[in-house]
């Protein structure tokens, strides 16, 4: 299981210091982010049945595996003779996987991997979820040890990677009140506001929005189109709430929900407001 987590790295371009420039180019932003990757254990590169069994495995959930970034685990191959890693990468790509790195390799293997255009991972933390057998949808289930009839190919797959229909796990947390006229946007993630959002404030998120104070301004969840995004707030006094572009203005919010803790979500094209009990 590959798991990589970096602290937020912010790199500012040197050109920012040149104050005399009439127009500074925008600063280059590099940030850290953590993703869950698939790890493919490679028992024996010479095993002729490997790729056909891999094809079977992928056939169970083709959408899940399509273009999935994969880390190849070489832990069983420390004593194996050298093999053609670039060729292996090509074959994985034929199966719609995208190898991006190796882990647990010997120094020689690591060098070959880097030459093949991959990176070297330290072993990540395993994750306790697996691909559901129901095919296309990435469902999260507890693993069933009995079901493992092909132990040679093991994929453990949490649903975050390239799962475009799920909001990213990273959240933006705001601890200060969001005042009138301010706009806060959580790109590709959730927005958590621990304080109150004033009338005239605008909360936007690609994912969910949580407001632990009173929501008096506007809240727009799933602004990039995620219809599953929700808004949760402790006290609803919003001017407008919206999910994935569908909205309700204050005039369309029933009075008995005003001041209540609620969740807001989309049902078809309707914005639903439900009290939280």
């Amino acid at each position, binding site marked *: 299981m590959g798991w990589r987590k970096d602290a937020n790295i912010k790199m500012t371009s040197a050109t920012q210091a040149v104050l005399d420039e009439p127009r500074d180019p925008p600063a280059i932003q590099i940030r850290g982010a953590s993703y869950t990757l698939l790890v493919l254990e490679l028992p024996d590169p010479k095993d002729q049945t490997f790729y056909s069994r891999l094809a079977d495995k992928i056939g169970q959930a083709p959408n899940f595996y399509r273009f999935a970034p994969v880390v190849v685990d070489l832990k069983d191959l420390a004593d194996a003779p050298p093999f053609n890693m670039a060729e292996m990468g090509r074959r994985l790509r034929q199966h719609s996987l995208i190898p991006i790195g190796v882990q647990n390799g010997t120094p020689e293997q690591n060098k070959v991997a880097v030459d093949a255009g991959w990176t070297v991972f330290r072993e990540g933390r395993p994750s306790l979820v697996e691909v559901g057998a129901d095919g296309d949808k990435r469902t999260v289930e507890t693993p069933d040890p009995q079901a493992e009839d092909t132990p040679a190919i093991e994929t453990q797959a949490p649903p975050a990677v390239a799962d475009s229909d799920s909001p990213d796990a990273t959240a933006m947390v705001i601890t200060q009140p969001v005042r*009138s006229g301010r706009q806060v946007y959580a790109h590709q993630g959730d927005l958590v506001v621990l304080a109150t959002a004033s009338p005239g404030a605008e909360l936007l998120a690609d994912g969910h929005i949580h407001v632990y104070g009173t929501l008096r301004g506007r809240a727009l969840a799933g602004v990039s189109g995620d219809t599953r995004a929700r808004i949760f707030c402790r006290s609803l006094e919003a001017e*407008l709430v919206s999910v994935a572009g569908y*909205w309700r203005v*204050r*005039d369309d919010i029933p009075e008995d929900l005003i001041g209540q803790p609620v969740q807001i979500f989309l049902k078809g094209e309707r914005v639903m407001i439900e009290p939280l009990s």
Partner: protein
Amino acid sequence: MSKIITMTSGKGGVGKTTTAAAFASGLALQGHKTVVIDFDVGLRNLDLVMGCERRVVFDFINVINGDAKLNQALIKDKRVENLAILPTSQTRDKDALTQKGVGKVLEQLKEDFDYIICDSPAGIEKGALMALYHADEAIIVTNPEVSSVRDSDRILGVLQSRSRRAEENLEPVKEHLLLTRYDANRVERGEMLKVDDVLEILGIPLLGIIPESQSVLKASNVGQPVILDTDSAAGRAYNDAVSRFLGETIEHRFMKPERRGLFQRLLWRTA
């Protein structure tokens, strides 16, 4: 021919938004199709004064940026027929107001409305310039005090030099003076400028005198333009001003302090 009328002042807090709401409602009540636009990006008070803040989805800036169609952003007034409000945004940048963008929206509004009322922000910066650039007529909202009069003078200069009519050598913007928050008692005591003093300095025709009145604050608290409160002096004064604007001749009132009887003089605190 539809007309663009801008409420402007230079100085802040003199009553532009109150006047824009009152005039828009008054013109609509007299049967003219009217729209009132908030140019005060970032503060956005007009929708509160008009009582439609709970129905705002899209705004003026959305329309300029092409994020929404004009008819999606226009809010029909619930009380007065023929009246629509184009609210502005509180969160977006006022740089979104471009001369071309604003011009395009105004052109489109001209197709449907007789009067387009622009509520200008204070100052003589970008927002104010955008609000007055396209004006055919301007109502200079002034309080009877020195700083307000000076700023009005300043904004008259801007109108004469930086409006579209000035730039294109057309007939100049028609100017009207509206004296608001006029407190006859304080004028009598010499604490405020007299009407004549103001007229002498500014030298533009007087459209009306709106007395200082508690009813203005009450009206904006309930989101109802004060002109609809025909019991209040301010409401009646605004009605007179609108009628004058439309060409009627009406004598100016509210210039003198109200004569109070003995009991009223003793009991004025409860009045």
